[in-house]
């Protein structure tokens, strides 16, 4: 990285240096000019939610990757996604572990309006949908079996029969998700809709998202999901780990499907900062992304590292759940019904498949789902999707960090998709078999049976 792009910190650096030697001469050591740019801000506070996929932040801290970049980072657990977002916006946090939909939702003004950007995708997959024991007992006899076990993936049409029965008895069917613009909301909606259940529309006047709904969705913070379901307030939920496995351990519910089975290798969390923070601290931003890339590489380097990461995450200050519970999904397997543990090596992906690169097509997928469910109330041209994605996703910052790591010998060229134009190309691997092409968002919206079409309005 050249110094030309960063005149301000260097000037400050020179001022500091001359003050230190107590001289007014410009005699700066020749080496200093060619050194890596200094971070503009060195003491940083990042927020996270108690979920296993906060791992990149935890690892970068515990393995001193942040320190290697000259950063002094404090990590702080946040109560819920709204608090986290608000604190990033008002500057109490420099950046945070965010839902992929959060920077997009904030930028287009659904919920809190603010310019949030991301240069780093934290992981792929990692969520599951869990139903309460009562629902599972009604659902299980309806499911096809295979070799004495329930056949996976479980489709929502089995749940539809249960919901229809409840409806005829006048009982509402309620499920929890973690935030209106969360991956969980869209995944849960995707799964329900693929099975013929309407998850409800958002409208400009009704932002609860329950218009026409067969299943009433509401927001519950991730760590409270199991206890809320246990209390009977919701009958199931979609959440990240360890809160699905927690339900199995507590014996209060059964995970029916993971998001990996809904959309193979879907982008999950991102590292989000405000646009103004990113503009003021370009060098710091690159330094943070460097540390996070190293953390993700470490996480996917070996099973031993994963086991070590589980130990870190189980500390009370991070996720705090039992090692066993966290370890279940982090180490490549997933327990559905109690005792029905199946291998799921890609349940948590941190670096493989270019997981950390901020693809425009990922951003556009979330935007299509926001439109599908009415969070975006009016029709938008394909170009709007592209522009919004470019406003929020900053692959240039990512590549700057990646190149620096390659130059330092900490990563290889092949680790990064240097040639990509930001689109993964047409993707299959969705539970309903519909192919997604990020270049044609309106086309994509036309393919869904349930959901708003490009020209619809609610």
């Amino acid at each position, binding site marked *: 990285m050249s110094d030309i792009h960063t005149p301000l910190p260097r000037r400050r650096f020179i001022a*500091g*240096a*001359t003050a*230190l*030697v107590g001289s007014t001469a410009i005699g*700066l*050591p020749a*080496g*200093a000019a060619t*050194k890596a740019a200094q971070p503009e801000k*060195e*003491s940083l506070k990042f927020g996270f939610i*108690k979920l296993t996929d906060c791992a990149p932040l935890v690892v970068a801290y515990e393995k*001193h990757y942040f*320190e290697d970049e*000259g950063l*002094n*980072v*404090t990590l702080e*657990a*946040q*109560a819920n996604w709204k*608090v986290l977002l608000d604190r990033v916006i*008002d500057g*109490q946090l420099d950046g945070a572990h965010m839902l992929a939909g959060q920077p997009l939702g904030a930028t287009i003004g659904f919920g809190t309006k603010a310019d949030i950007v991301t240069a780093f995708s934290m992981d792929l997959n990692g969520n599951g949908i869990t139903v309460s024991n009562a629902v599972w007992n009604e659902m299980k006899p309806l499911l096809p079996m295979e070799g004495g076990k329930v056949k996976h993936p479980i489709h929502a049409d089995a749940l539809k029969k249960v919901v229809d029965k409840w409806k005829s008895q006048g009982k509402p069917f309620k499920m929890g998700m973690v935030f209106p613009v969360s991956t969980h909301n869209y995944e849960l909606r995707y799964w329900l809709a693929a099975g013929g259940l309407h998850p409800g529309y958002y409208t400009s006047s009704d932002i609860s998202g329950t218009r026409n709904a067969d299943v009433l969705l509401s927001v519950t913070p991730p*760590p*409270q999901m*199991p*206890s809320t379901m*246990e209390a009977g307030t919701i009958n199931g939920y979609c959440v990240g780990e360890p809160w699905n496995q*927690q339900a199995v351990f*507590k*014996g*209060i519910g059964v995970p029916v499907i993971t998001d990996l089975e809904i959309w193979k290798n879907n982008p999950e969390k991102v590292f989000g900062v405000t646009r103004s923070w990113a503009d003021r601290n370009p060098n710091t931003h690159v330094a943070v992304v460097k540390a996070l890339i190293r953390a993700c590489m470490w996480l996917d380097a070996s099973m031993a590292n994963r086991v070590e990461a589980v130990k870190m995450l*189980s500390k*009370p*200050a991070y*996720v*705090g*759940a*039992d090692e066993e*519970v966290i370890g279940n999904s982090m180490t490549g397997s997933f327990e559905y019904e109690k005792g029905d543990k199946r291998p799921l090596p890609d349940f948590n992906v941190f670096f493989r498949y270019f997981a950390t690169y901020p693809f425009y097509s990922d951003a556009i997928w979330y935007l299509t789902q926001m439109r599908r469910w009415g969070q975006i109330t009016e029709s938008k041209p394909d170009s709007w999707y592209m522009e919004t994605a470019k406003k929020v996703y900053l692959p240039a910052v990512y590549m700057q960090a990646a190149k620096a790591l390659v130059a330092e010998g900490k990563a290889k060229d092949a680790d990064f998709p240097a040639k990509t134009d930001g689109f993964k190309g047409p993707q299959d691997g969705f539970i309903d078999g519909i192919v997604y092409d990020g270049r044609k968002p309106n086309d994509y919206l036309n393919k869904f049976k349930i959901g708003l079409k490009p020209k619809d309005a609610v």
Partner: protein
Amino acid sequence: MELVQRMFGAPLRDPRAWARSMGMAIVVPLLALLLFVGLWAGVAPRIETSLGAFPGPAQVLEQTQVLWQGHLAERANRDAFYQRQDARNKEKLAEDPSYQPRHFVYNGKPTFLDQIVTSLITVFTGFLLATVVAVPLGILAGSSRIVQAAINPIVQIFRPVSPLAWLPIVTLIVSAVYVTTGTPMFQKSFLISAITVTLCSLWTTLINTAIGVTSVDKDLVNVGKVLQLPLSTRVRKIILPSALPYIFTGMRLSLGVGWMVLIAAEMLAQNPGLGKFVWDEFQNGSSDSLSRIMVAVFTIGLIGFALDRLMQLLQNAVEHK
């Protein structure tokens, strides 16, 4: 000699009465405590929660040690952090003599002991603020019927308000009003907790002070008036000495209320302190969480008890002067 007399005088003079009073003071509470622990140990394993059986005394004791070990480990981490920082500074200086060494403050997690200290500082700040406001206001209300009539409805309406209702308002106001650049002197979360404590613990002191002032011997007050003593002297020499027991009782109750309020406020607002510790453990939902919460419950109780005793001692000291 006098001490020996005081210590052993009673048993020598009246051994039976002494034994009875000692029995009441030590043996009965001890037995009751043992009974309580026994009951707890017996009942706890039968209560099956989703986090496993409810912890008994043994598990709670074990977690107390774990928390202490955690505290020591975190301190070791801190030392390691500073060592790494020094090493890094040295290395950078060797590379580049003009480098300005960085001296960051350790960025680790607060331990259980840190949380206790935070809570104590917060509750005392809030309590002192409450006292500073409530005592003069109470004296004013006690000495003037007009002021009393004016203040009364406000006090009656705000006194029963739960801290949970104040919290969002305080949070929003502090966030809006307390704008700082750079490193602020106080953390916002600290101010929010302390002010909430103030708002909730204000009233008891205020009311008690007012009652204390009203109940000052009328003759004394009249003497003051006849002698045409200036107001400050009247307050110092006549009103305060008589009203002091009431004021201190009010303050004692206020501190108790403040301590309870603080824990709730910290839980709800996620502000650092014991309340946050309890909430975090609840959220963590690990198999040790309940035991850790019990450790916090006992800690909160013991500290509350200690605070009450402290106020009592203070009261005695002041009154007997």
